[in-house]
Structures are given as structure tokens and as C-alpha cells.
């Protein structure tokens, strides 16, 4: 049990500054913060950038990078005698095969974008203005107007859950507790997703303005931004934009801004795991209810939004909620879609919500080879076959065909891809990134991966897969958070649409 006044929130940053969790470091950090030594060790070992500081260059084994021969890249590093290890998706799918060197961050090359257009809410290709007109309008018309416009816009969370933003904003605003927080989830990690990276790199002022509006509307005095640890440049760009806005006099000192580093854990993109990380704990999702709008950061009402969601707010206030609502085709708004894998021009494309896969493929210059399957929204959305390219890519139509929009990280697979290998790649990802807290996810992800390996090792003996239904049912029903609930979908969807590759039926 930690002493009263122990500085728990500081421990991750201190561990980072000490160069990670080497022997004896937990004792030093214990002496400095008053948090029990074992706790510090337990927290440090949770985050892979801290637990293994000497792992060298991280080579991405996300699906898009695997398709682009990340195994070959790793072998080249091995041949050069450069220390390296595989890691989960680095959010650089447009540069596949991607790698990241903690000591020498590789530059981001210019990512393909949709051309600038008046129809886009974010418009990545446009110049990032520093007018902050929406913030001025918000302060003039008041918090209720802001939230009413959000409601009229129909904006839903762009991180993957698609929850209506105005409900969260209003819920925080209506809390009797006046100590409130705004948290930006910039822990982008869903395999195939790199839109939040581009939003912050290209339109950082949209993000800063959206956050300032949220803090104003919710009367929050502190904003926390949690940035994925591998996104050093992204964090620096955002810090520079905040500084610039201060110089311009747009931001005053009534709100404190905190930029916090992630330390390598996909699960911290789950909002309550993110809060645990901010509080200096192992990033294990919390039981809900209570939800963060009621008891969030430090147990106080907290608004947590994804980067893309918050970046939509200025356009909504400038052009009206109705405009945003009408900018979508099947659901409100324009939407960023990340295209990677077997496409000609991997990149981030903004399109009306509900655009079809066929249209997205055209924007990205078409398929390299012949389309076989695609993953519409990151690993968690599973796979759909080529004949589903006319389904609306939104939060309603994709669930009807057994998938989901998720983070709209679209991975395109051509007919050279073995769906068993693709499913195994996703199974490895979920096993590596499960937090380990609940049994269905921790054990279920191991069973799925080991089962697929047995299937391949046995020369594709279908009997090795016979408990897939039972295991995936339980993972989906009984896991605490979305990671475990979705982790079986890549395998079950691949089996459903490509049964012959899994030794069943004739499909």
C-alpha cells in the first residue's frame, strides 16, 4: 500500500528518464516517490518500451508491414549485426515495412492524402490556420451552444467506438463535481491506422483548438494529452502548436496543458487503460460502470476523445452542426480512412462517412494485384471478402456484415495472401498486446495463436481448429474490454469467408 502523498503519477516518466527498468531502478524510484518498490516493478514491466530498454530497433510486424516483407527487413538488421526485435503496429503502415529506432527516430515521409476540399471537416492537405475562430465563437456563445451544435452535427467518436460525442460532453458538464478533466487519446495503435499521426503533424492547431473548446465547454482546468511513445515527432509538433497559440494570445493560463508519453502498450488506447497509465499504474482497463464521464482521471469527471474527433470540432462550430451532419453520406460527417497493404498509394483519405471500399480503392490508386480481402477498421474489425467492396464504410453497415468501422485503418489484401497467415498475424498481435488482466482474453488469445500454429504445423489438419467457436464465443462474451471481445474476429471472419483455407467446406 502506498503512503499518503506518494507520487504515483510521476513513476512512468521517471522510469523513462532513467532509461527503463534496469535492475535496482525500481528501488531508486521507490525512494524518490514513496510508491512501493514491487508496484513500480509491476508497472514498469507492463510497458514494453520500459521493460526492455535494450531491445534495439523495433521492426513492425503489423499486417501491412508483414505483407511488405518485414521479416526480410528484420533479417537485414540481423545480417548487419544491428540489434532489433519485432513489435506491434508502429502506425507507419504507409511506409511499410516500417521500423522505429528509439535512439534515432526515422523520418516520416510525405504520406498520400486526398486533395484539399471544402467538403472536408479536417482537410489534411489544407494549410493549418491559426485563426482560432471557432474558439472565439464558442466563448462568445457559451458552452450550451457548443454542445447543441455538437449534437446537431451527429459527431460520433472516431477512435473506434462511434459513441455520440455530445452525450459525453453533456454528461461531464452536468456533473456536480467541478474538478473535471479533458483527455486527448493520441495513443494511436490499432494496426493499419495512422490518421491521428497525420492530423497532429498537419493540422495541430485544429487539435489544440478542439481541446481548448472542450475545456471551455466543460469548465475543465486541465488538459492531458496521451501520445503514443513511438510518436516523438508528433508530440513535439503538438507542443510547438500549443506554444504558438500561447504566443498568439489565443490560449491563456486558465487551463494547464500536459503532454504525457505512452511507453509501449496498445491497450492504453482503451480509454480507462489510458487513465490507469496517466495515474502511473499498469494499463489494465477498469470495470465499467462507472464511466469516465462520471469517475475518470483521478476519479473525477473526464472527457476522453480521439484526435480525429476533437479535430472535427472547429469545423462543426465554424460551419454549423447541420453542415457537418450533411457532409456524411450514410452517417454524419466526413471521415479519415487510412489505406495500406496492397494499394498503389497508401495514405490517409478523407471522404463522406459511408463511402464504399470500391471508392476508397480508387482514391488510393487501385489494388496492387487482384483484391482478395480487406480489413475495414484495423485488426479488431476482422476480414471481409472482395465481394463486399460496395458496403458503406460506416458504423452501422459494417456491423451488419459481421465487421466494424473501428478506427478506419483499412488493410487491403491481394490474392497472394494466405488467410491463415493473415489470421495468425492478427492473433499474434492480440496475444502480445492483451493486458493479461482477464482470463478470456489472456488465455483465449494464446489458445487461438497456438491453435493456428498447430494447424499449419499439422499440414492443415482441420481438427486442430474444432474449439474455435467455443473459445471465440467466450472471448467475445466475457472479456472485460474491446480487445478481448474483438480478438477472435480476424480468425472467425477469415474462416467464415475463406472456409477452404481452413480445411472446411468448399468455399
Amino acid at each position: 500500500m502506498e503512503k499518503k502523498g506518494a507520487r504515483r503519477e510521476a513513476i512512468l516518466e521517471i522510469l523513462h528518464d532513467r532509461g527503463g527498468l534496469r535492475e535496482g531502478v525500481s528501488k531508486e524510484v521507490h525512494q524518490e516517490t514513496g510508491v512501493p518498490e514491487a508496484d513500480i516493478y509491476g508497472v514498469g514491466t507492463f510497458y514494453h518500451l520500459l521493460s526492455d530498454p535494450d531491445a534495439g530497433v523495433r521492426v513492425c510486424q503489423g499486417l501491412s508491414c508483414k505483407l511488405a516483407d518485414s521479416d526480410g527487413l528484420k533479417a537485414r538488421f540481423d545480417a548487419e549485426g544491428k540489434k532489433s526485435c519485432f513489435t506491434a503496429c508502429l502506425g507507419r503502415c504507409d511506409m511499410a515495412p516500417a521500423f522505429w529506432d528509439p535512439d534515432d527516430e526515422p523520418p516520416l515521409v510525405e504520406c498520400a492524402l486526398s486533395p484539399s476540399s471544402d467538403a472536408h471537416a479536417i482537410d489534411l492537405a489544407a494549410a493549418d490556420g491559426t485563426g482560432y475562430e471557432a474558439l472565439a465563437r464558442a466563448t462568445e456563445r457559451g458552452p450550451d451552444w457548443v454542445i447543441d451544435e455538437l449534437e446537431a452535427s451527429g459527431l460520433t467518436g472516431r477512435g473506434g467506438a462511434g459513441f455520440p460525442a455530445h452525450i459525453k460532453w453533456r454528461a461531464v458538464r452536468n456533473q456536480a463535481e467541478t474538478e473535471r478533466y479533458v483527455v486527448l487519446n493520441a495513443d494511436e495503435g490499432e494496426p493499419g491506422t495512422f490518421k491521428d499521426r497525420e492530423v497532429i503533424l498537419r493540422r495541430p492547431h485544429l487539435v489544440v483548438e478542439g481541446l481548448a473548446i472542450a475545456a471551455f465547454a466543460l469548465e475543465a482546468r486541465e488538459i492531458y494529452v496521451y501520445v503514443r511513445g513511438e510518436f516523438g515527432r508528433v508530440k513535439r509538433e503538438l507542443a510547438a502548436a500549443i506554444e504558438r497559440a500561447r504566443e498568439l494570445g489565443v490560449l491563456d493560463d486558465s487551463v494547464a496543458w500536459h503532454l504525457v508519453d505512452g511507453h509501449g502498450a496498445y491497450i492504453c488506447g482503451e480509454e480507462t487503460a489510458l487513465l490507469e497509465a496517466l495515474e502511473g499504474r499498469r494499463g489494465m482497463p477498469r470495470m465499467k460502470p462507472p464511466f469516465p464521464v462520471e469517475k475518470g482521471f483521478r476519479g473525477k469527471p473526464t472527457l476522453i476523445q480521439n484526435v480525429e474527433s476533437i479535430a472535427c470540432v472547429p469545423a462543426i462550430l465554424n460551419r454549423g452542426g447541420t453542415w457537418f451532419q450533411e457532409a456524411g453520406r450514410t452517417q454524419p460527417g466526413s471521415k479519415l480512412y487510412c489505406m495500406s497493404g496492397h494499394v498503389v498509394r497508401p495514405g490517409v483519405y478523407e471522404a463522406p462517412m459511408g463511402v464504399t471500399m470500391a471508392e476508397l480503392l480508387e482514391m488510393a490508386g487501385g489494388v496492387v494485384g487482384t483484391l482478395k480481402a480487406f480489413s475495414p477498421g484495423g485488426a479488431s474489425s476482422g476480414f471481409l471478402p472482395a465481394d463486399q467492396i460496395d458496403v458503406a464504410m460506416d458504423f452501422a453497415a459494417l456491423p451488419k456484415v459481421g465487421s466494424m468501422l473501428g478506427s478506419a485503418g483499412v488493410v487491403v489484401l491481394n490474392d497472394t495472401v494466405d488467410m491463415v497467415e493473415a489470421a495468425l498475424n492478427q492473433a499474434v498481435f492480440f496475444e502480445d498486446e492483451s493486458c493479461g488482466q482477464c482470463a478470456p482474453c489472456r488465455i483465449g488469445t494464446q489458445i487461438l495463436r497456438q491453435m493456428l500454429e498447430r494447424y499449419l504445423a499439422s499440414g492443415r489438419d482441420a481438427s486442430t481448429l474444432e474449439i474455435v467457436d467455443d473459445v471465440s464465443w467466450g472471448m467475445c462474451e466475457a472479456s472485460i474490454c474491446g480487445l478481448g471481445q474483438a480478438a477472435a474476429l480476424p480468425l472467425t471472419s477469415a474462416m467464415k469467408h475463406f472456409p477452404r483455407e481452413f480445411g472446411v467446406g468448399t468455399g
Partner: protein
Amino acid sequence: MSDFVIIDGNEISFEPGETLLQAAKRAEIEIPTLCWDPRLEPAGACRMCLVEIEGSRLMQPACSYKAAANQVVRTQTSRVQRNREFILSLHLADTIQDRDVMEDNNPSRIHELAEVYGTAGDWTPVAKQRVGRPNDVNKFISFRPDRCILCSLCTRYCDQVEAVSAITLAGRGAHTTISTADERSLTDTTCELCGGCVDVCPTGAMTEKAAVEYGKPERELEKVRTTCNFCGVGCQIDLNIDTEANRIVKVTSPPPGTTVNDGNLCVKGRFANDFVHHEDRLTTPLVREPGGGLREATWDEALDRVVKGLQAASARHGKDSLAFISSSRCTGEENYLMQKLARAGFGTHNIHQCAAT
């Protein structure tokens, strides 16, 4: 007007803040758990206690979900039952399916529950990735990762009840295990060797080294309830006796909520029992021979010798040449008698108790 939660059709009143599990327990509705303990904050991690709640898409853990007025809860549906079978099959695949091997010492709650609720089948064992601490040199507690279900009862107990925080969940995902800082021996940490981790462990992953070495499973031992005599608190302990050999194999604590110590023990009560069968243990009084040697005597003879000696010293050097010190193992009543002996019997106020300073 009281509020009721409706569990399996029964209207059950509840206190604000109570969980579904607490309400169900009062109504004697059985909901199986693996990671719950009344002394600890619920973890909701084992997912064994999931129940259906009307209006909730997902099943919810009864151990942490708060009861609400007119909430309709179902604990006996086919979905709830299927989940219980699923969870038990998972844990069996991830630990040791053979009950005799699993229960070499401590009983296994997953096997007990599997007997009651059934399983979804015997699944291929998981190739486990948890590590233990093979170099931990402490003499009492052993952690066996192949049996661990990561319920975190041990780490929560160490933190929330003992406030010692010697052990922690470490690593992530499949590699999650129980560890100390830098995987050191328990004796090189804040651990007080209370053994509470062994007691709360539902699978024998945390276990007592000597008892495992003795080689007889707990279910073959007879539990004899007695009072610990290491101090005056009066903790109730269960001696686990091998009746064939007439030996104490280990000491366990009665379940929480049943005795004054609420399931807790200290290092002495739990582990310091090897003196009972030790060859050097005195079993009769000894008195000193004129030549200096010791010989066996009766209590009457030995006590007479003590009284005579004390009286002689008092007569020669005065009453305050004597001082009486009682042991920290004595109860309040025994301490009272000791001061009575000093003051009334020998006329001195020189009386002390070793735990008083």
C-alpha cells in the same frame, strides 16, 4: 421504502453500494467466484461470476457490479452456465488438468468448481509463458507459475490487507506473472512471510515449501482448530494433521469472517510450528543437580525449587532484589496473574512484560 434487486425472481433488499454478489450471498443464491475475497476490493478478472442483467448487452461481474433498485438479474441462464463452463475449461487448459497432480498439496478451486458446474471440454493445454522465481531462497513460500490463474488475490491481499506490497503482477498479457521487485527472494523484500498469499491462493500456485515436501495433499489431512499461543491476540488456527504419522504438516487459518483473526495469520502462527516435533523440545521439567547437570523432575518438585530459590534471594537481599518479566506470548489474564504473584506473593513492584517496551 426499501429498494430491492430481483435475482432469479427473488426480491432481495440491499444497502447502497452493495454488489450483486453481496446481495446474492445474503439470499443464499450461489454465484461461483475465483478471484473474490470479502476483505479485498473486487478485481472482476476471473469472469467466473458473470451474470445477466436486464438492459445490459454484456454479462456483468457480480463481484463488482453494484445492485440497483428493481434491477433484474439472472444467474441460472444457459448463457451464464455456458460462460462458467468456458472459464473453467480455459483455466484448466492454462494450468494442470489432472486433479491429483494439481492438488499435490493445496486444494484447487477450479477443479472443485468444474465438478459442480462442468466444463466446455478438455482443451489442449496452453504452452505456458509465465515465469517463476526459481532462485528465491526463502524457506517458506514457493510460487509455482504453472498453477497460477492470475486472480491477483495474493497481490491484492499483500497490498490491501497486510499493507506490505512485497509482490506484484508483473509483465503483460501471456507473460503476466506474480513477482517481486527485480525477481528477488521474498526475504530481500518488504515481505513479512505472513503466508497470506498462500492462504488466499485458490490453486496452490502460492504454496508452503515444507508442506509440498512432506508430500501429502491437504484433503488427506485432518484439520484441528486451536488457538495460536504465540501471543495474546487469540488467533484461531487450524492444525493440518497427518493422523497416521501423528504430525502437524502445516497450519492454515480458518476462512475470513469466521474467527477473530478474519483469515489472517502472522509468520509465527503460520510457519513457526516445527518446534512441536523437534527432538530438542523439552517435554518434562528439568532441575539442576548439585554437580551442575540437569535431570528430569515432576512439576511439583520443579516449582518447589523455584519458590525456595526466590524466597531465599528475597530474604537475603530484600524484596526488591527480585524482578518478574512475563512473556509476550501471555494473555492479559496471564499477565494479571504474573503481577499478582510479584506484588502479593513476593512484595515487589518489579513487574514487566516483554512486549510493553
